[in-house]
């Protein structure tokens, strides 16, 4: 797994790549937690984190990866932040559907829509 972090205005975007298996979920969770804490310690943006997870280049994700997504959702919500998923590939989408988590996550198919989605809420 590789993660690339970038910013667009007040939005943090993580481009996640490769397979999320084994201990990768822990690493992904750690990166997101760090952003949660960083946002929460700053006054701009009211201490909230606005996060887009770009899943386009995820080849495979296991149940711990799914767990990391859910845990991140919970901790970001706790600080009144927002997290949305961008460009779900077939297998990751299947996983989220199977686990009945489609209602939890807002999913978008373009970065512009994802940004608009975060902004309007």
């Amino acid at each position: 797994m590789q993660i690339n972090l970038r910013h667009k205005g007040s939005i943090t975007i993580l481009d996640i790549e490769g397979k999320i298996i084994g201990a990768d979920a822990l690493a992904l969770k750690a990166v997101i937690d760090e952003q949660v804490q960083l946002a929460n310690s700053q006054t701009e943006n009211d201490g909230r984190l606005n996060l887009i997870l770009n899943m386009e280049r995820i080849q495979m994700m296991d149940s711990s990866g799914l767990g990391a997504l859910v845990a991140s959702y919970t901790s970001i919500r706790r600080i009144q932040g927002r997290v949305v998923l961008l460009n779900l590939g077939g297998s990751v989408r299947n996983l989220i559907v199977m686990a009945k988590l489609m209602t939890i996550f807002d999913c978008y198919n373009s970065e512009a829509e994802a940004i608009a989605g975060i902004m309007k809420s």
Partner: protein
Amino acid sequence: MGERTEQVITLSLPSSMQHVYLLDVVVSEILKEMDLGEDVQEQINLAVIEAGTNAIKHGNKEDLSKKATFQFVLADDKFTIVITDEGEGFTRQEVADPLDPENLLKSSGRGLFLMEACMDSVTYEANGTIVKMVKYKETPAP
């Protein structure tokens, strides 16, 4: 049927989460050599990773001196994977249902569910220290 050309590949790993990547390349390569659709390959790959992670983490508690063993049985009509750990086992019935609304936001507990969803059959033997998973190549004869 198909038993005559059955081949068994065995992999045995010290119980470190680090070796899940090795397990993944082994399964991926075996699947590549087989005649299966991409979706089916992804399902089997995921099920093996989940079972392997459980054997290493829950079964052997990441004790490097304990082995997680994977038998890949390639037959004409089906692909069987037998995962064995050296732990104390568990009772499948006592594991909570991850689709239960009260469990939806939990960060774990979806592995067994996914294994069972991805494979045609999952059997727990020897108190759950042996997990046997089967995927049939075509719909099995009734």
